[in-house]
C-alpha cells in the first residue's frame, strides 16, 4: 500500500527535493498521523457494519463529488483490493442512489449530504439513518469516514496551491 505521506505528496505533485518537501518535513508527525487516520477510517481492524469495500467505494464517491479525480483513482484501487462487487461497486456512480436497498440508499444520501452540504444537516439526517436500521456505532463510523476525507481532500488542494511558493 502507498503510504499516506507519499499519497498526499504524489497527488499534490510535491517533488522529493523541492523546498515544499522541506516545509512538509517539519510537520512530519502530522502527515504520519494523517496516514494512520486514513487507515483507521478506510481499513479499521473492526469495521463494524460498514465493510472495507463499502468504505473505499464511498470514499471514491466523495472524491468524485468534490472534484478530486486523483483521489477517486486511489480509492478505486482500494476498492478493487477490498473486492467491491455488485451494488457496492455501483456506489461510485453519482447517479446511483442505492436503488431498492434501503440501507445503502440511506448511507449514500448521508454521505452526499455531509460531503457536499454539511451546513444543511439536522437531526433528521441522523434519524433517517436510524430508520434505515443503521446502528449508532455505524453512524459514527460513517461520519468519521466522510469527515476525514473532507480534511484529506482539502490538505491536498492546499498543497497543490503551495507548489508555486518554494
Amino acid at each position, binding site marked *: 500500500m502507498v503510504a499516506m505521506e507519499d499519497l498526499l505528496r504524489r497527488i499534490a505533485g510535491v517533488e522529493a527535493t523541492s523546498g515544499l518537501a522541506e516545509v512538509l518535513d517539519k510537520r512530519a508527525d502530522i502527515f504520519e498521523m494523517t496516514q494512520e487516520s486514513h487507515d483507521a477510517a478506510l481499513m479499521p481492524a473492526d469495521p463494524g457494519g460498514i465493510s472495507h469495500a463499502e468504505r473505499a467505494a464511498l470514499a471514491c464517491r466523495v472524491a468524485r463529488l468534490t472534484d478530486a479525480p486523483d483521489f477517486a483513482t486511489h480509492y478505486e484501487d482500494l476498492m478493487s483490493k477490498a473486492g467491491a462487487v455488485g451494488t457496492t461497486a455501483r456506489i461510485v456512480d453519482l447517479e446511483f442512489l442505492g436503488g431498492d436497498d434501503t440501507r445503502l440508499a440511506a448511507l449514500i444520501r448521508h454521505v452526499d449530504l455531509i460531503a457536499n452540504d454539511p451546513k444543511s444537516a439536522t437531526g433528521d439526517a441522523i434519524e433517517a439513518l436510524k430508520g434505515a436500521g443503521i446502528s449508532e456505532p455505524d453512524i459514527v*463510523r460513517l461520519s468519521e469516514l466522510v469527515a476525514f476525507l473532507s480534511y484529506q481532500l482539502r490538505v491536498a488542494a492546499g498543497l497543490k496551491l503551495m507548489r508555486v511558493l518554494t
Partner: protein
Amino acid sequence: MKTLHDFTTTVPAWKPHVAPLDLAKATVAQLDALKVTPSNQKVSDYVLVLAHDVETLKVRTPLFNAIMYNRGGLSRAERELGAVSSSVVNRCIYCAAVHASRYNQLAREGTTIAEIFARGANAKLEPRLAAIFNFATRLSQSPPTADSADIAALVDAGLNPDEILDLVLSTSLFGWANRLMHTLGEPIEA
C-alpha cells in the same frame, strides 16, 4: 432546550443525536482511547459519541493537538482563525463559538470575530487577517474554490510557507471537525 442557529462567542451546550457510549459498557480499547482512569471519569458527551469509532478517535485526538498547538509556524491565534473560517462556512455554531472565543483570548481583540459573525464572507478585515480568512473560507467550500490568487494574497500579507501550511492544516482539520460536531448533535443554550 432551544437549538441555537446564530453565531455566538458564548460556548453553548451540545445535545447529541447519537447516544454517547455508556462507560460501564466500554471496551478496554475505548477506555484507553478516552484516557479514562479511576480518578478521571470526566469525558464530554461529544467524545463519548466519537468513542463508538475508537480506532479513528485514538489517532484523531493527537493529530488535532499537533495541528492546533505544535511549535513554530503560524501563530495559535491565526490557526484559530482558520478553524473559525471553516466553522462559519459549514455553520457549525458550536465549533465557531469555541474557536472564536479562543481567537479573542489569544489575539486580545474582539472586533475581527464580531465583523466575521456579522458579515460572513463579506467581512472587512485588516489585510493579513483578510488574506487568512478569505483563503480559509474558500478552501472550506465544497468543492474547495481557493486558488493561486488567494495564495498570492497570503504571501503579499507576509505569510511564509511554514505559516501557510499550518493554515491549510488547521482549516482542513475543521472541515473534519465541523462534519462531526454539526451533524452528530446540535448546539443548545448552556
